[in-house]
Structure formats: C-alpha cells, structure tokens
C-alpha cells in the first residue's frame, strides 16, 4: 500500500512539473506588470496589446493558413502515395519505398531545413511563404502515409472484388469503397500534419525569407530580445487552441472507433 502511494505521488509530481511552465506562462499573461516575476495585479492589458499588434496577428493568421493548406495538400498527396504503395505485391520493392518514405520522418529537422535551403537556392527559388509551404507539405507527406497505409493494408478485399464483379469501374470503387473506408486515417494524418506544421521551428527557420515569418520563428526572434508578456497572452490563446484540437481529435477518434465497431 505504501509503495502504491509512493508510486502515485511520483507520477503526480511529474505531471505537476510538466504543467508548471505552461500554467506559469498563462498566469503571467494576466499580470499588469511587464516581466515574468513578482505580481503587480490582474489585468487584460497584454491581451489588448496583442489584439492591437497587427504584425503578430498577421503572423498568427499566416501560421494557421500555412498549417491548414500544407496539411490538406499533404493529406491528398500522402493518400495517393499510400494507394500507390498498396498496389505493390513485391515485398522488396515495398521495403525500398517505405524506407525512402521514412527518411524525412527520422531525419533531424535541422538537416531537413538546410537541405531544403540548398535546394531552393540552387533552383533560384525565392524564400517566403511558398518555400515554407512547399517544405511543410514535403515533411508532412510521410506522416500522412504512415497513418493511411496500415489502414489500406488491413482493408477487407472482398468488398472490392464484389464491386468489380458487379461491374464497378476503378473510379467508382475508389470513391465509393476505398476512400470512405480509409477516411478516418486520412483525417488522423491531416490532424497530425496540422500539429507538425504548427509546431515546426527548425525547418521553417531555414527556408523562410525576410518577408515571411511563422509563430515559432517570431517567438524565437522576440525571445532573444527578452521577455514580453504579450507572448504570454499569445501562448495562453495557443494553449486554448491546442486544448480544442486535442478535444476534437479525441472526440473524432473515439467517435469513428465507435462507428467502426458498430458497423462491424
């Protein structure tokens, strides 16, 4: 019994330590002072500053536009890639492709960033929103593929065979059977790609030019100049958004699990 209490309090301690920095950040966003120490009283002044800071708001908007568009395109290409890989029956070829696919997943983000920087420079591509977008699509594709391919492999082929026997053509089979069947995994891949894009710093840092910035890069350059509680207000908002995303993801996966179990 004593051991159990010891173990539980250990886990509790880790939880507390994990959340202290986050709670600390959020709490100080309501401080009326200007630094993250002491307490000068409760105020919304940093939120007012945040909503008046058009530069930061534009960066926030850009970050979300970037994440949503890169995740959408990556979900599309990743799904097509998964369908392509699924058509392989030769295990050796499949292994070659899977390991190539995994290169970007395991590579340190710094090396991805600099190698894309070299690529864009050699192609004479100017750095900005488009180069960042292309890079985010590039590192999100393998994530989507990783979510979709196992689902395709698990899929019951009898339905497809039956549909073909009944005279359905490829397009119909794809749109009526395959896509609905793998849809939850495409969505999971999309959401994962979304969070990767929102969270990325290292790759964006190298391939963004002077004119374009994402939230991570902006926080990096501001944090180098010192603390500003506007960033705290921003992180409180971001935390709320992450909570909502987690909740959406959680509800979505439990819902589709339930549905899958019911239909089986």
């Amino acid at each position, binding site marked *: 019994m004593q051991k159990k209490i010891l173990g539980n309090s250990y886990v509790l301690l880790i939880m507390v330590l994990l959340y202290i920095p986050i709670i600390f950040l959020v709490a100080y966003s309501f401080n009326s002072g200007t630094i993250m120490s002491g307490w000068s009283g409760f105020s919304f002044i940093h939120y007012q500053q945040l909503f008046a800071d058009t530069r930061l708001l534009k960066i926030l908007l850009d970050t979300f536009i970037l994440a949503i568009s890169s995740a959408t395109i990556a979900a599309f290409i990743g799904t097509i890639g998964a369908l392509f890989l699924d058509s392989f029956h030769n295990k050796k070829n499949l292994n070659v492709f899977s390991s190539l696919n995994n290169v970007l997943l395991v590579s340190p983000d710094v090396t991805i960033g*600099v190698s*894309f920087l070299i690529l864009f420079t050699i192609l004479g591509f100017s750095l900005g929103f488009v180069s960042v977008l292309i890079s985010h699509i590039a590192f999100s594709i393998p994530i989507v593929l990783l979510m979709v391919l196992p689902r395709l492999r698990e899929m019951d082929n009898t339905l497809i065979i039956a549909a073909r026997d009944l005279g359905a053509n490829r397009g119909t089979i794809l749109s009526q059977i395959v896509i609905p069947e793998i849809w939850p995994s495409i969505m999971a891949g999309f959401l994962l790609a979304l969070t990767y894009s929102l969270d990325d*710093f290292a790759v964006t840092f190298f391939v963004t030019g002077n004119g374009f910035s994402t939230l991570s890069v902006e926080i990096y350059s501001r944090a180098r100049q010192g603390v500003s509680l506007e960033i705290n207000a921003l992180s409180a908002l971001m935390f709320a958004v992450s909570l909502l995303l987690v909740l959406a993801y959680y509800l979505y996966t439990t819902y589709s699990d339930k549905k899958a179990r019911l239909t089986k």
Partner: protein
Amino acid sequence: MKNNIRAKAFFAIPYISWLAVFVIVPIGLLIYQSLTNAQGHFTLANFHEFITSSVYLPMAFNSVFYALIITTITFIISFPAAYVLSRLKHRQLWLMLIILPTWINVLLKTYAFLGLLSKSGLINQLLLTLGFGTHNLLFNHVSFIFVAVYLELPFMLLPIYNSINEIDTDILKASRDLGAKPINTLRQLVLPLSINGIKSGIQAVFIPSLSLFMLTTLIGGNKVMTLGSAIELHFIVTQNWHMGSTIAIILILAMAVTMYFTRERGKQK
C-alpha cells in the same frame, strides 16, 4: 491493360516526384556541398578539417555527451513513471495529460523557462525563501540539460509506457508467486519485455538532442554547442555552407548509428 497502367501512373507520379525532389535530391545536394569547396572543386578537405581541427571533433563529442546525459536522465525519470502509469486506473486520462503538453509549441515552452529561471523568477524566489539565496540559473550547461529533459520527457515516457502496458500481468504475478524478488522480476522480466519501447524512446530523445539549436541560444546562452547549433552557425552566420553540410552529414551518420544500435531485434510478432 493500358487503362491499368495509366491509373497506376496517376497514383505514382505525385508521390514519386515528391520522393525524388524532397528526399533523394536534398540528400544528394548535402553530400555534394560537403564534398566541394567554395570554388566548386571536389575535395575531401571539409571532412579532413572536421577530423583534424581542434574545433569540430571536440564539439561533436560534446554534443554526443550532452545528448547521452539528456537521454539517460529522461530514461531514469520515465521508466518508473511508465511502470506506475501502466498500473493506474484511469490510464487513458493520465496518458492524455502527458501527451497534451507535447501539442504546445516548443518555442512557447522554452520561452516559459526564460521567466521561470530568470534572476527574479519563480525558482529563484523559492530558493531565496528557503534560504539558499539567488543564483544565475539561466545560460549555462545545467539549464540547457534541464529544459531539454523537460521537452523530451514525454517522448521517452510514451513508448516505454506502451511496451510495459503490453506485458501480460499474469507473467509478473507468476514470477512473484514463484518467489522472485521484485528486483529480479524487474531485471529479468519487465526490462527485457519492454526493451523495444526503451529503444524507441532512446531514438526519440537522443537524435533530437543532437540537433537542438534554439535551446542552445535561448537557454544555454551559447555555452553549449550541439551539432545542430554548429550547422545553424555555418549556414546562417558564417555562410560557410560547405562546412555546414559536412556537419549535417556527420549528424545524419550519428543518426544512422543510433538507429542501428536501437533497431528491433529478434523475432517479429
């Protein structure tokens, strides 16, 4: 048949062009850059300089050393926690609580420590009230390791938890019934049976620890140099892309070695 080939091409072309342009070509370009000099001539000088100069090799060893420390500490903290977690009642909820912080932007979490560890920050206030006085907590080796451990902890905990969770509790009960001491059960059952989770945890912590570069500037005060920050330095500050690519190749090699030693061995499930 012709239709079949056309359909296959439709699926193959976008994916294969992605593989070519963003996986194969970038690696080729990195290798090319590392093997050339500013005049574009082929040379091994960059690698030669990496090995013989008094700067690069010690920096690389330093980076590996820090990554080892970070990995070891996260493992020591995570393993017991994963074990306790796998025995808890509302496991799914606790798990969500561990995953949630990983969804928050890394830069924001790092930024929090600028406040927590500052001269008049929370930790120093605590030290002061406890009678230890205030200290310079930021911009040194310890703060770098501390924050890195904080950021990487969930990535060690989750895979270990998953593999411990898969262990059949009957095996552990049997071991206890047969009179094994807890330490023997741990060493001969829990550790070997969760080894794949431990290995993935090591991969997920060790490789990023080699390449962290925003932490070295923001928290480490440039006192710590990792392979990642050396690459950043060469690409952004000194603009020596050839040497930067050489270090990037070394980083990829270090990653490959890590993956090799932590690969899953033995029978497949």
